[in-house]
């Protein structure tokens, strides 16, 4: 991470640039494609629209106006929180996103916690017992795990744990049409979330493991650790007092950045598990050529990634001993 070298203002300028680029892409894509942009802006065949609807879309996108006016109008809509209307679903897109977002947050958040804990513990074990059989086998299994398509692991989990063993539900976020309340409802949600969360965690764990292992090895090689060892300090004291505080910043930054990544990974994972989150929404929108929904979801993903970047920056500043954090 290059967070330390740059001013806070510079970073925020960069994030603003990313957001502007994403919004501009969303604006430009339907208008740049050959053919009538109307179908792309509506997300359904023009023939299926009534004359009124056609006029409405034309007016909303300002297709009769010069391009720069359309662009200004587009920003105006976004700033008012208007993400457009899905003519296929006959619903405002903002409403659809709001309904899906909590499920993705549940999956991505739990997966982030699980993969960070597992990745850090295994990475620390590996680094502490460098070149032992444990280290080697962990390293090889992580490299192997990194080479498998995550959604395929999800399919196998369903085949084994849901179909063969019948331990967990295979699809969805809740049992359909079951009138559950309170604790039973919570249990139902947890049971449905276990397999997707596990799959999503396995997707991001190898990178975390490798970062933790490499960072710890780097710090263990530093002079102050050698000094601490020479002083005769206990191994645990060296690990917790000297190694971990110095290894924490890149690890925590990595974990925060993973949040945005886990969001992206949810597209395939939610598709496999028919989980009603944002990722599944993108998949459905692709399948039905509902371009406005696809784009709005992409924008939401961009915001999520940027927020996790900002979080990573803030954490880095607080944790890095060299940047004069509060705890030193």
């Amino acid at each position, binding site marked *: 991470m290059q967070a330390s070298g740059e001013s806070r203002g510079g970073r925020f300028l*960069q*994030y603003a*640039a*990313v957001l502007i*680029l*994403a919004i501009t*892409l969303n604006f430009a*894509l*339907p208008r740049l*494609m050959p053919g009538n942009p109307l179908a*792309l802006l509506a997300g359904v065949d023009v023939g299926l629209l009534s004359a009124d609807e056609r006029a409405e879309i034309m007016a909303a996108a300002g297709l009769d106006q010069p391009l720069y006016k359309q662009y200004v109008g587009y920003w105006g809509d976004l700033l008012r929180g208007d993400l457009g209307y899905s003519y296929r679903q006959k619903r405002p897109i903002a409403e659809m996103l709001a309904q899906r977002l909590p499920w993705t947050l549940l999956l991505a958040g739990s997966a982030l916690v699980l993969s960070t804990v597992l990745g850090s513990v295994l990475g620390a074990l590996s680094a502490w017992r460098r070149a032992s059989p444990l280290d*080697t086998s962990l390293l090889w299994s992580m*490299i*192997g795990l*990194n*080479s*498998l*398509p995550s*959604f*395929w*692991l999800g*399919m*196998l989990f*369903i*085949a084994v744990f849901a*179909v063969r063993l019948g331990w967990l539900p*295979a699809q969805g976020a809740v049992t359909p049409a079951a009138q559950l309340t309170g604790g039973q409802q919570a249990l139902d949600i947890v049971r449905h979330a276990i397999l997707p969360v596990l799959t999503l965690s396995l997707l991001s764990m190898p990178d975390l493991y490798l970062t933790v292992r490499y960072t710890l*090895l*780097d710090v*263990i*090689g530093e002079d102050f650790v050698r000094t601490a060892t020479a002083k005769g300090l206990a191994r645990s004291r060296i690990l917790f007092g000297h190694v971990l505080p110095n290894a924490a910043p890149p690890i925590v930054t990595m974990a925060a950045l993973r949040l*945005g990544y886990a*969001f*992206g*990974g949810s*597209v*395939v994972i939610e*598709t*496999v598990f028919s989980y009603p989150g944002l990722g599944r929404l*993108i*998949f459905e929108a*692709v*399948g039905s*050529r509902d*371009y406005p929904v*696809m*784009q709005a*979801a*992409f924008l939401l*993903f*961009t915001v*999520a*990634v*940027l927020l996790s*970047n900002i979080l990573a920056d803030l954490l880095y500043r607080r944790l890095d001993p060299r940047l004069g954090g509060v705890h030193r």
Partner: protein
Amino acid sequence: MSAAASPAQPARRSRFLALSGTARAAALIGAALVLGLACMAIFAPQLSPYDPAERVGPPFSPPSPVHLLGTNDIGQDILSELIYGARVSLSVGVSAAALSTALGTVVGLLAGYYRRLEHWLMRLADIVLALPFLPLLIVLAAYVGRSLTNTVIIIGLLLWAGTARLIRSQTLALSQREFVLAAATVGCTRGRILRRHIWPHVTFLVISEFLRATTTVILLEVSLSFLGLGDPLQKSWGAMLYWAQARGAFLTPAWAWWVLPPGLSIGAVALGFALIGFALEEIVNPRLRNGNA
């Protein structure tokens, strides 16, 4: 990147022998996997028992001597699909990785050596890195249409930024070294220094980045095909999994011959490239080999 290495011809043989046992095993296994799958792709017409696009049996047949891996939902031979699928994975993987590595290398070299360009090129790389990769890929693929060429171009154009960052920092470090400064002092042009004195020292890094990118691209292509955004005319492993998913094959015993084989094949080819890259990294970064890091 040892300081003593002659910049013109790095001695590859001795470097291979200097590797640790683990890295040498990784390189050999990786090369075997990649070569094996490459042969499968090249000789697909000779190896596969049927034309993968033809309906050659009753739909949903279980494995039998006639169809070793059974047939899919419309009666195509799964083994033949699997063999032809290697073509898509390897060709998309290698060509998109080559495109992204070439872009990243050029940007990295320019940014590392021409300080005036550095600021803008690296801001651009940061911006590309901060975009949500898979969702953007999906949106672009949905717009430009489903074909192998489009997949290659989109992935190549989005993946270069990480490579550019790495090559830039290596170039930056090299440009401060004595032999580069000396070359500049005796009047070498900047272009010549870049070509003759810096480029030979980043080639291994470039190759290792290419291998890493290939693994990434192969997995991305599979994800795109699985989401229904692959080339509809090509038999790819991702598309096989897409249909297996759409027909609920993983809810029936068919998962063992319809879901398992494509996933394992993807894993084998991605792992093959990753292992070669892993061994190469030890050459690029000798600190991993001995010393304490």
